[in-house]
């Protein structure tokens, strides 16, 4: 492998990228847009869920119960009709997530020490929201009215993310997802484009070896991806003021390894297909979808059936995601995350060798 030939080829690739401002603009700007949008859009906490209250009792006690729901921060009153059917209709139309029915005689039963039934209906369509809302709703009901109750006071402390800010949890995960979305897509188009336009024949005719070709292609895209890494990490940590507990240097170094890995995957995809459209579709299926759905980014891996957990383990995003969350949220050092780093390194080596092996100099 001659370094001079490899660098000359990389230089050609750099010139090609720099003369296509659209692609360059997409590569630099879109990850940032994605970061901002997702960090604002994804909030897994449940706050101010719309609630409809049907209060048929209209007593001091029923008003107090209603106030407890609204002051909890989890619910927000949208309507207080007299007719239960109005509330049911609102649930059907998706205008409210929950409905609270306080029947006649609620206060009277409560003061006599009789069981006082109260009905809470939760829209189960969005299961995550529904199970959190029903837990809080029941907790409020159990604790009412309070003076007669045994006060067992849970003092909940949330470690590593005390305000349970979704952003602190989402942003380090986004590093892993965004870097799997963009660099492989760009690289996947890189070789497929040469094939589609026929310029690959010039490579076949040159003395360049497989290794030089693959490494020369990889280098400029790895640099571009590293630039994206810096932009995304900088934007995430500074703009969203996500506190980083571990070492920033460690995050960047592991991130560099990860982007080489993602770019290699793009290259591998590129050697497998012949057209740009096919390259993009395959890239979508092997990089973005698993990175997004099967990495533990939003959907926890441990709830999946065993076969799908194995499937999830076959993609590198989950390992970098663990490392990134470990460093940013828990202040983990190399001692805690070395396993993930080792897996990513091994993965990269295998993918690179596969790509070099798959790339054959021949005219198909």
């Amino acid at each position: 492998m001659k370094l001079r030939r490899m660098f000359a080829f990389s230089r050609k690739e750099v010139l090609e990228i720099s003369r296509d401002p659209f692609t360059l603009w997409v590569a630099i700007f879109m990850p940032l847009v994605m970061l901002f949008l997702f960090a604002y859009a994804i909030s897994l906490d449940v706050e101010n869920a719309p609630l409809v209250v049907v209060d048929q009792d209209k007593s001091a006690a029923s008003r107090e119960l209603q106030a407890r729901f609204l002051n909890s921060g989890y619910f927000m009153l949208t309507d207080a009709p007299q007719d239960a059917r109005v509330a049911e209709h609102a649930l059907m139309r998706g205008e409210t997530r929950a409905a609270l029915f306080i029947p006649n005689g609620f206060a009277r039963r409560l003061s006599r020490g009789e069981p006082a039934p109260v009905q809470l209906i939760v829209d189960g369509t969005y299961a995550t929201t529904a199970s959190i809302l029903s837990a809080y709703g029941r907790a409020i009901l159990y604790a009412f009215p309070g003076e007669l109750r045994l006060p067992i006071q849970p003092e909940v402390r949330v470690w590593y993310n005390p305000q349970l800010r979704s952003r602190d949890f989402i942003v380090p995960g986004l590093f892993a997802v965004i870097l799997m979305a963009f660099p492989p897509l760009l690289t996947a188009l890189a070789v497929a484009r040469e094939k589609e336009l026929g310029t690959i024949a010039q490579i076949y005719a040159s003395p360049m070896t497989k290794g030089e070709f693959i490494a020369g292609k990889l280098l400029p895209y790895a640099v571009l991806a590293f630039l994206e890494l810096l932009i995304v990490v900088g934007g995430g940590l500074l703009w969203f003021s996500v506190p980083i507990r571990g070492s920033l240097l460690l995050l960047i170094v592991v991130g560099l390894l990860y982007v080489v890995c993602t770019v290699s995957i793009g290259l591998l995809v590129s050697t497998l297909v012949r057209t740009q459209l096919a390259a993009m579709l395959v890239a979508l299926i092997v990089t973005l979808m698993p990175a997004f759905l099967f990495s533990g980014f939003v959907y926890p891996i441990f709830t999946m059936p065993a076969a799908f957990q194995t499937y999830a383990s076959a993609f590198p995003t989950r390992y970098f995601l663990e490392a990134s969350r470990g460093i940013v949220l828990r202040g983990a050092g190399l001692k805690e995350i070395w396993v993930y780093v080792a897996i990513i390194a091994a993965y990269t080596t295998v993918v690179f060798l596969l790509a070099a092996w798959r790339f054959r100099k021949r005219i198909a």
Partner: protein
Amino acid sequence: MWGRIAGLTVKEFRQVLRDPIILFLIVYLYSAELVICTLALGFDVQNLKLGVIDHDRTEASRSVIQALTGGDNFVLAAQLADMRQVEDHLQRGALDAVVEIPPGFARRIAAGRRVDLGVVVDGSNGNIAARARAYVIEILARFAQERTAVQIHTHGVQPVLRVWYNPDLTNTRFMALTMLAEAGLMLGVVLPAAAIVREKQGGTIEQLRVTPVRAHELFLAKITPTIVICSGAVFPVLFILTLLGIPVQGGIGTLLALTVVFLMSAVSIGVFVATITNTLQQAMLVSFFGLFPLLFLSGTIAPIESMPGWLQAASQASPLLHYVDIVSGLFLKGAGIGELWSHAAALIAISAAMFAGGWFLFKRQW
């Protein structure tokens, strides 16, 4: 005019049906992807790993632990001696939450005095942490109420909780419907965009320009195959959904009509993308990056209520949001057009805006 449109449409159908990759993608998205995601991601968060530090070691403290770990929410994963061990377990991810019962717990309960229970939740996975916190608070409140009822012979509020439309609170049904909607959106945007830009990049649009074909006729021919294929795909999907135990409750006619309305809004975005790009690569990149905001603002990944106000307003522009409400209404709630017309109107408004924008820009290129 109708003859021209028919001729062009036949040509477009042939072009789509001749491309094995596209056909494979359509089948893949509507079948394999839908089934994989439904089976893998439909599960609720249960059996969180709970650690317990019991300083009291009495009947009362054991019954609290029993109350916490008796249901589906928590499993008892470790008995710890003190708080110093907690750090290590949470760091390794061996525990999701820890409850510390103070000494004198039983004595204080018997005396009717206030007890503070220490609870630590691992916040590094926000999704799990929010639930762990809610579950602990709920179980302790119920425990306290039941104890009081025994001690001073009084009853309190009897919560009757009903979960409508999805009583077992699984994600399965919602996930399957989401994947149906996402497949329609992706194909609806990408296929017409690729079909139009291919003519631009290949230069064949010059040939069309010298024919009597008008811009809107070309648009109509380009979007028809996508709408026909994707709305036809609803039928095999209905079969798959029935196998997954998700039968349609509303009318199939309503479903089909509203699906066509949804696909119109998706293809209108595809047409718009095609008018602002010149090569296939650009069109793919733009639609790729346009799809994700639409996906995120649909409420399928994170609840809309928790988003900032400006994003909640923006989410109204996502066709996916309206269509997911439509299909969950039809499949889960047994809703009809009477409940769903406002979503249909929003979809029509989106299509009208995108078609008008696309047509205006395309006119200048034509």
